[in-house]
């Protein structure tokens, strides 16, 4: 049993234990006690110092030290400041933030109030995608209940601190997870990123100092205040403290939401917690950091997970998506899948991202069609590097990562696609051939009858043949053959 408990739940401490629509259950588990403690016994400076000491870093992916961010916003003089919660979770296959907001919305509200007290803000905004109706509903209920108890509103805990939160809806654009694009979107402008500096901590929402933190980052705050920075920074590695929530998905037995201490290895997450690969297949790669991250291979399985190690390995922490792939997954197709996503989500403001990613996608498409050349491989790497170096925001700066990391880790797969027109994983349809094993074929003509394009010919009771030029690779013949005479070559 002890071996199984590799998870420590801090951000998810209440998820699954309390009724998110009843504030009393949150209060019974020490809810709003951290806010009370801060308002009654601590100064903003002391609180920021505590967060800095805890070593908490932004959980949205960037990994910027949270306490430092708060301090930067605090230091700017302004009449009005804002704190923002970034709940625009956009990575394919990631659902950490949604789960926290659906399972424990009060922890985010409490932390936003603490943040506002520290930074000197009186207004809070939650930017959440409209595709999360249940999270929005529960957040609204939570806000109403928090106001009734006076945890939001004027003179909170009898102090002279006043604060309230509003919800802003996003249309579910990936780029709006970037803080300047998010702020533009909240202002009613196009969701396009701006040039930094100035950072939002100086000029953010409505031109005022704005502190943007991610949902999971907030969920950690009340615990740090109550348990103390020294307790928190004992968990994790030297430069990455605490825990990280991952959405474990893909070809793994126990798909789910896990919260693990920093420094745990990928092997422990995938094999011990995740229960290993589905159907006893062989592990091939794991994609962390979503479309901005990279794929990691067997060689990285024993690398301790933290912000810096993942970057050194050619990927990134990202917001916490973790997609496991097995031997049946083609790495070129995988890179193409993520590029397809980026091309859709690019806002189009800067040329490298808008045009570059599209060209990158076309090159990958060409390779998966079996029409790639050696020169294409060279172009692919070259273009990827240019996009990384010249894009305006994080989206373009990281979008070629899936291509680069698969090229680095699986060069043989790219070579095989280009030189031998072969896809090891058998995923690239254009590179597959359905072939009839002459000796095994009885000439029953069943395949001839199911072939939708009449690509199969042969005399009754004699071996049949598939015309590769006509074949559309639908696989109907192989499915129907009773003698197992058709195989993929």
């Amino acid at each position: 049993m002890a071996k199984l408990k590799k998870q420590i739940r801090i951000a998810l401490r209440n998820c699954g234990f309390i009724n998110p629509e009843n504030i009393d259950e949150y209060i019974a588990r020490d809810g709003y006690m951290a806010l009370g403690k801060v308002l009654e016994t601590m100064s903003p400076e002391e609180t920021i110092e505590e967060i800095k000491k805890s070593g908490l870093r932004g959980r949205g992916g960037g990994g910027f030290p949270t306490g430092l961010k708060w301090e930067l916003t605090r230091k700017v003089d302004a009449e009005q400041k804002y704190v923002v919660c970034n709940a625009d979770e956009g990575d394919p296959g990631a659902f950490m933030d949604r789960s926290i907001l659906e399972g424990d919305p009060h922890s985010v509200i409490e932390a936003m109030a603490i943040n506002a007290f520290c930074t000197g803000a009186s207004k809070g905004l939650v930017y959440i995608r409209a595709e999360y109706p249940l999270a929005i509903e529960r957040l609204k209920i939570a806000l109403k209940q928090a106001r009734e108890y006076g945890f939001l509103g004027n003179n909170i805990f009898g102090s002279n601190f006043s604060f309230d939160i509003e919800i802003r809806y996003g249309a579910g654009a990936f780029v709006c997870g970037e803080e300047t694009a998010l702020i533009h979107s909240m202002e009613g402008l196009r969701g396009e990123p701006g040039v930094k500096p100035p950072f939002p901590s100086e000029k953010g929402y409505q031109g005022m100092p704005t502190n943007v933190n991610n949902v999971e980052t907030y969920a950690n705050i009340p615990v740090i205040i109550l348990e103390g920075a020294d307790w928190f920074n004992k968990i994790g590695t030297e430069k990455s403290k605490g825990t990280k929530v991952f959405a474990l998905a893909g070809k793994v037995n126990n798909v789910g939401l896990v919260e693990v201490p920093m420094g745990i290895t990928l092997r422990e997450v995938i094999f011990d917690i995740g229960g290993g690969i589905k159907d006893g297949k062989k592990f091939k790669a794991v994609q962390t950091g979503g479309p901005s991250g990279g794929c990691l291979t067997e060689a990285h399985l024993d690398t301790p997970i933290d912000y810096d190690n993942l970057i050194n390995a050619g990927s990134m922490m990202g917001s916490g998506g973790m997609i496991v792939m097995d031997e049946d997954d083609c790495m070129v197709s995988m890179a193409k899948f993520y590029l397809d996503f980026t091309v859709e989500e690019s806002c189009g403001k800067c040329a490298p991202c808008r045009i570059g990613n599209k060209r990158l996608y076309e090159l990958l498409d060409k390779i998966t069609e079996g029409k790639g050349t050696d020169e294409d491989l060279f172009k692919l790497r070259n273009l990827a590097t240019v996009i990384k170096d010249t894009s305006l925001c994080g989206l373009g700066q990281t979008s070629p990562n899936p291509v680069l990391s698969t090229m680095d880790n699986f060069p043989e797969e790219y070579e095989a696609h280009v030189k031998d027109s072969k896809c090891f994983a058998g995923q690239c349809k254009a590179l597959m051939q359905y072939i009839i094993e002459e000796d095994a074929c009885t000439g029953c003509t069943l395949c001839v009858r199911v072939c939708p394009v009449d690509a199969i010919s042969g005399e009754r009771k004699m071996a049949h043949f598939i015309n590769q030029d006509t074949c559309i690779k639908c696989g109907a013949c192989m499915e129907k053959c009773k003698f197992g005479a058709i195989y993929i070559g």
Partner: protein
Amino acid sequence: MMKIDSVKDLKNLRDKLKSAENLKKATVMVKVSMSTCGIASGARETMDYFINELDNKAIDASVIKTGCMGYCYAEPTIELSKPGKEPVIFGYVDTKRAQEIIDKYIVADEELVGIIPLNFETVN
């Protein structure tokens, strides 16, 4: 609802709520994981089923909806606690499984296979 004006007020309220919760622990408690994913897998039917069936059988119990427990692969999931026993987690709880859990685990007090082992520690 009263306004909380000090940490002292909040502590009093917390202690009151905690003892009320401890009273609940003397009865059967079913927590149903009801986030978007759970509901999509049928958690709402599971929850309604527990409410109705426990009521029909006149079993003193509370059925509570919670957020995601993290066992996406086994949705719908429930956490079940009986008085004097550690809470256990069941996965794949459709109405058929729910009936089995009520009949065997709650009413007959038999052991039931298929309990998901708890694989994490929490701070609280």
